């Protein structure tokens, strides 16, 4: 061995010992919470759903702006009243276990999900399908029991992603521990707080540029920040705004902000006085400074709301503006007979951000003599007192601060569960108990057609009417923040707080 090769091997040996000089290019993502499961049809949190997009794909999906795109489907058409959808499938796609992806696989998946006996928690995505017909190897036809214009958007939801029929047969209800999909990465390991996936070299698109992805749950935000600084993690989605300064001062790190589809509001129980009076509801909207809300609650990373749904959702229109005007608010309250104001309870989940928001609303409404009692509720208690009530007339809630994100990216799931009169708890989430026959008609009209132009018309009407009816105090749409190392590209936050990692790549 000559001197030169000795030096080289010593240097290589040293390089192996020094942490941080790992040669394999795995992407490590540090997230706050633990994943709850790996069966996409049976998980309910955005983090698990979005992580599963590494392994699984649906017939349709979303691009980084959350616009609907075909994935395992090539295209589709439907009849005029949205009761039949014919979907043509992509050729030459195989699952990770070698099973071919074809019309039969789609039928197995959709039949499994919609079968009530399977008790899958995402069943409502496809419960309106009454029959799945295999037309030929690469064409399926869905027959619906009732018109549903948002069908394709529902199929883009992660809950409707395609699982290998062979794996379903082999593992049955244990499929959540042995995920087999068609996605860019193959499942490797899931331990207490880490999910590891490896590149799928037989991917039907161009294989991923990173060798694998590791999703680690790191509950403490300071620790996620430290991992980014040491290079132990390269991407931190949902980054806390208070740490942005640290990242901005570090040349090796980058922070990105983008608008979300999470809109925040205070819902007012329209069944209960004084909120049964539209003038009162409108007055409260004039009494709250939405720009200040964004500054105080979200450090300015937020846009005031201009409709009942955020602008990032399909079919959004600007519905109007409740200008901040305390005098006008007072006049409206006087007109409604509440010149001396009133007292009410405001509820929200117990966390720092919600508390800050409730206190802000409390302070704003004090200007118009409305006294609020701030009541934070632990998540389990909130579930029981707000959502799992026996019937609408037993609802105790007066005001509720919360947010909503439409996980199908469509106006339907942004409006129907929240403002259709039939959606009052316990059925769905109309915690304002808003009941407006014209809004109901518009929402149902939109469901009754698959024609995008007609749907747009119905949703514009619904937004304008509901805005004027003021079931909520409209607040703002929060921004998303993510941080990453500068050598990483191709990772994106999705507006629903999920993320896309398929195109991740490291600079050489």
């Amino acid at each position, binding site marked *: 061995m000559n001197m030169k090769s000795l030096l080289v091997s010593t240097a290589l040996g040293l390089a192996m010992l020094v942490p941080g000089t790992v040669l394999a290019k795995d992407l490590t993502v540090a997230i706050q919470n633990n994943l709850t499961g790996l069966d996409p049809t049976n998980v309910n949190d955005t983090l698990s759903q979005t992580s599963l997009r590494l392994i699984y794909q649906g017939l349709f999906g979303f691009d980084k702006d959350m616009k609907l795109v075909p994935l395992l489907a090539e295209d589709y058409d439907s009849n005029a009243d949205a009761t039949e959808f014919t979907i043509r499938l992509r050729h030459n796609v195989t699952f990770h276990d070698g099973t071919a992806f074809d019309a039969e696989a789609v039928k197995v998946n959709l039949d499994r999900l919609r079968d009530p006996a399977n008790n*899958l928690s995402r069943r409502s995505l496809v419960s309106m399908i009454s029959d799945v017909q295999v037309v030929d190897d690469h064409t399926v036809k869905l027959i619906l029991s009732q018109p549903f214009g948002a069908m394709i958007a529902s199929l883009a939801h992660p809950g409707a992603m395609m699982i290998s029929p062979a794996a379903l047969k082999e593992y049955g209800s244990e499929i959540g521990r042995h995920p087999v999909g068609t996605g860019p990465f193959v499942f490797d390991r899931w331990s207490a707080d880490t999910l590891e996936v490896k590149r799928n070299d037989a991917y039907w698109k161009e294989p991923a540029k990173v060798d694998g992805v590791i999703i680690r749950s790191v509950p403490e935000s300071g620790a996620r920040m430290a991992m980014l*600084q040491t290079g132990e993690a390269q991407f931190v989605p949902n980054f806390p705004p208070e740490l942005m300064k640290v990242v901005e001062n570090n040349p090796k790190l980058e922070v990105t902000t983008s608008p979300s589809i999470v809109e925040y509001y205070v819902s007012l129980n329209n069944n209960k006085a004084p909120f049964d009076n539209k003038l009162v509801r409108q007055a409260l909207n004039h009494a709250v400074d939405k720009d200040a809300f964004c500054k105080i609650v979200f450090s300015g990373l937020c846009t005031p709301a201009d409709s009942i749904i955020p602008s990032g959702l399909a079919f959004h229109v600007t519905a109007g503006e409740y200008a901040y005007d305390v005098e006008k608010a007072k006049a409206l309250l006087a007109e409604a007979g509440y010149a001396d104001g009133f007292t009410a309870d405001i509820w929200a989940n117990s966390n720092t951000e919600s508390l800050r928001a409730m206190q802000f609303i409390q302070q704003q409404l004090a200007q118009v003599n409305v006294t609020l009692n701030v009541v934070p509720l632990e998540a*389990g208690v909130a579930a029981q007192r707000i959502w799992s009530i026996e019937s609408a007339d037993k609802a105790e809630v007066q005001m509720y601060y919360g947010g909503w994100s439409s996980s199908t990216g469509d106006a339907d799931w942004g409006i129907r569960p929240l403002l259709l009169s039939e959606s009052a708890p316990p059925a769905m989430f109309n915690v304002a108990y808003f009941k407006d026959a014209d809004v109901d008609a518009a929402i149902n009209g939109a469901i009754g057609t698959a024609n995008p132009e007609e749907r747009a018309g119905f949703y514009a009407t619904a937004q304008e009417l509901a805005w004027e009816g003021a079931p909520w105090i409209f607040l703002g749409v929060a921004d998303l923040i993510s941080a990453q190392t500068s050598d990483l590209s191709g990772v994106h936050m999705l507006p629903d707080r999920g993320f896309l990692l398929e195109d991740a790549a490291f600079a050489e």
Partner: protein
Amino acid sequence: MLSYLIKRLLGAIPVVLMVTLAVFAFVHLLPGDPARLVAGPEATAQDVEAVRTALGLDKPLPQQFATYLSNTVQGDFGTSLKTRRPVAEEIGMRLMPTIWLTVFAMVWAVAVGLLIGVISAVRRGRWPDYTGMIVAVSGISFPPFWLGLLLINLFSVRLGWLPTGGYGTWQHFIMPSFTLGLGVAAVMARFTRSAFIEIAREDYVRTARAKGVPERRVIWRHSLRNALIPIITMVGLQFGFLLGGSIVVESVFSWPGVGRLLVDSVSYRDYPVIQALVLMFSLQFILINLLVDVLYVFANPEIRYK
């Protein structure tokens, strides 16, 4: 001794049964609907009912308890409502990290705590005593949360010597076991010091000195041995608490342990996991108490169990 141990273990059975019933009652009395929480924030009433049926939460409570008890006796702790993995597996993959962290933290903390305590007692009122007690009081007063982040910032971010968190090599143990053990070491030091000062007033210590036993022997044989009984009790208690997993340390160092699992399970109303964990913690305490009683015999041969 052996018959005593068997008697003690049999005596533990009613305690465990009571704990089982109490925990079951307690988790089911907690306000909150687990089916709703499992079904997620977007679930319709129909989805929630599907989940309720799938999890067996639609059955009457006595029936649920009977099922739970008979399954538990057979060693089946059920399935986590949240992840749908077997509870035994959920706990299993987090138990060893917590046990190892506890052992590492206890070993250094007890050794250092004892040493500081003894030195402080022997040099009472002089600078080693003051230094020792300042260190001990600081150790108790340091919020582990803040200390943990400080250590990460220094040793991981600035110096790059240690990983920020996670469970893996021996390097991963250094900062969490230091953070976890610091409070214990401080308590041990204060406790040892006062126990030691107490003993030093005893007649046999004076006698030992009077008959010319070397000071070193007086300290380590005569005094420490007799001070050991309360110290062992204290170590046992601390050990039992730490085995429950430290939520703060496990969170700061993203340690996959049982403390975080318990907190997550409570906020998710994951009944089977909460029940199994609390049952396990109570068993751990019973065993540690037993162990402490046995250790008394070695510390003080006058103690006999019949």
